[in-house]
């Protein structure tokens, strides 16, 4: 009887044995609108080696794909490039069912795997830059600390010129197609940017260094095999090039206007700001939080120069959805932004001031004092919004020149 799930051949000795998660939409706060995949890879030949595993509930799917290649044989080794549970969750099950003699991981990977699964796993630590033969197959391991966890590393298979890049160069995208050349470019770029903006942005300087390092090592990459989304067998330099570009956070003549409103007053101010920006040649993304998710705000901010945030005041505070988004964005450490805060209020008016302080604390260059309008913005308030936008536009154009 054939296995219900089949492996997909990637190169002479590499098979994709991962799982497709069609249902996931909330990846700890990142909205994965197109689902995801957890890619695991089986290297075959003189020995059988599994590179990463999948999220625990998908173990049976992975096991079936492994069995479709090696039948009842066991595996010799598991390489754990990343200890996060979407890749290591099924590791204990894989150990029980496939009986590897060893598990290779980075030093921080060993710490993280022990902390997750106890000390029962037999771990062997590989050093940064180390080359090792596993059962007759040569591999090279490179630590990629903080891209995006301390344990992160990538594994290179020189024989087939495959780079197993764990979360690196990945994207959340469920599909029946396994290769990027079978998927429309716009989708690859959109989901790639979303992934970068939401996961890698705080580590942008390290991304730049990693890409330089890969270049200096002169690794020939025929297959780029990340742990999420499609595998690249053509144009393998494309996603790394995009990462190099995104890591610079070079701002465009674009602004994000993100806000939450109670009775459309803050929204009216947001519209006046948008009008002022557009009239002055800045393209504006209008993002009411009743509709837009925090992870879409992060994506739009990736190449924006302007960052305008608004909130009305509720019980002496900014609105909770705004606090959510600003906290999230602050953690992502966006660079090269300038902007302002705004919002309506009834009697006390703390909301726009709190937004202003949050923007300032994340290093946004403030274009002016927070704009506040009582109850409903009148013609003067709206004029102030337009003026602020006009000033901001001038500064944005100067700022873009500098960067």
């Amino acid at each position, binding site marked *: 009887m054939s296995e219900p799930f089949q492996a997909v051949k990637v190169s002479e000795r590499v098979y994709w044995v991962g799982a497709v998660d069609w249902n996931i939409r909330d990846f700890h706060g990142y909205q994965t609108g197109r689902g995801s995949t957890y890619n695991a890879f089986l290297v075959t030949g003189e020995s059988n080696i599994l590179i990463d595993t999948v999220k625990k509930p998908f173990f049976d799917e992975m096991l079936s794909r492994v069995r479709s290649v090696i039948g009842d044989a066991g595996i010799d080794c598991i390489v754990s490039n990343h200890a996060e549970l979407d890749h290591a969750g099924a590791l204990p099950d894989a150990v029980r069912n496939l009986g590897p003699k060893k598990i290779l991981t980075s*030093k*921080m990977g060993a710490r993280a795997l022990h902390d997750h699964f106890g000390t029962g796993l037999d771990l062997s630590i590989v050093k940064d830059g180390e080359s090792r033969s596993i059962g007759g197959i040569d591999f090279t391991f490179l*630590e990629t*600390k*903080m891209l995006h966890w*301390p344990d992160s590393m990538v594994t290179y298979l020189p024989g087939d010129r495959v780079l197993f890049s764990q979360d690196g160069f990945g994207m959340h995208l469920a599909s029946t197609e396994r290769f990027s050349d079978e998927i429309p470019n716009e989708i690859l770029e959109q989901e790639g940017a979303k992934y970068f903006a939401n996961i890698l942005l705080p580590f942008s300087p*390290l991304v730049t260094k990693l890409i330089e390092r890969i270049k200096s090592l002169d690794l020939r990459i025929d297959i780029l095999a990340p742990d999420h989304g499609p595998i690249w067998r053509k144009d393998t330099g494309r996603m790394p090039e995009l990462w190099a570009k995104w890591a610079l956070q070079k701002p465009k003549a674009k602004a994000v206007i993100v806000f939450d409103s109670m009775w459309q007053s803050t929204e009216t101010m947001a519209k006046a700001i948008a009008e002022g920006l557009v009239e002055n040649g800045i393209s504006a993304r209008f993002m009411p939080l009743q509709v837009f998710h925090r992870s879409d705000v992060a994506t739009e901010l990736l190449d924006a120069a302007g960052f305008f945030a608004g909130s009305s005041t509720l019980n002496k505070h900014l609105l909770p959805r705004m606090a959510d988004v600003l906290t999230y964005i602050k953690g992502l450490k966006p660079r090269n932004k300038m902007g302002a805060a705004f919002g309506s209020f009834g009697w006390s008016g703390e909301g726009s001031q709190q937004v202003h302080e949050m923007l300032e604390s994340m290093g946004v260059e403030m274009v002016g004092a927070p704009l506040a309008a009582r109850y409903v913005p009148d013609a003067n308030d709206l004029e102030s919004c337009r003026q602020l936008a006009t000033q901001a536009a001038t500064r944005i154009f100067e700022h873009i020149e500098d960067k």
Partner: protein
Amino acid sequence: MKKYVCEVCGYVYDPAQGDEENGIAPGTSFEDLPDSWVCPMCGVGKSEFEPQE
């Protein structure tokens, strides 16, 4: 003065540079960093640092 490396994230503390964003003047040795100082990149404490080889 010796440089120290954060084991968790790879950040290198260079005494010649200090950590000015967090109020540490250039010329401050690793030993003289206050115990409350944390890695500016990943946020772990001084105990996670090792002298650079």
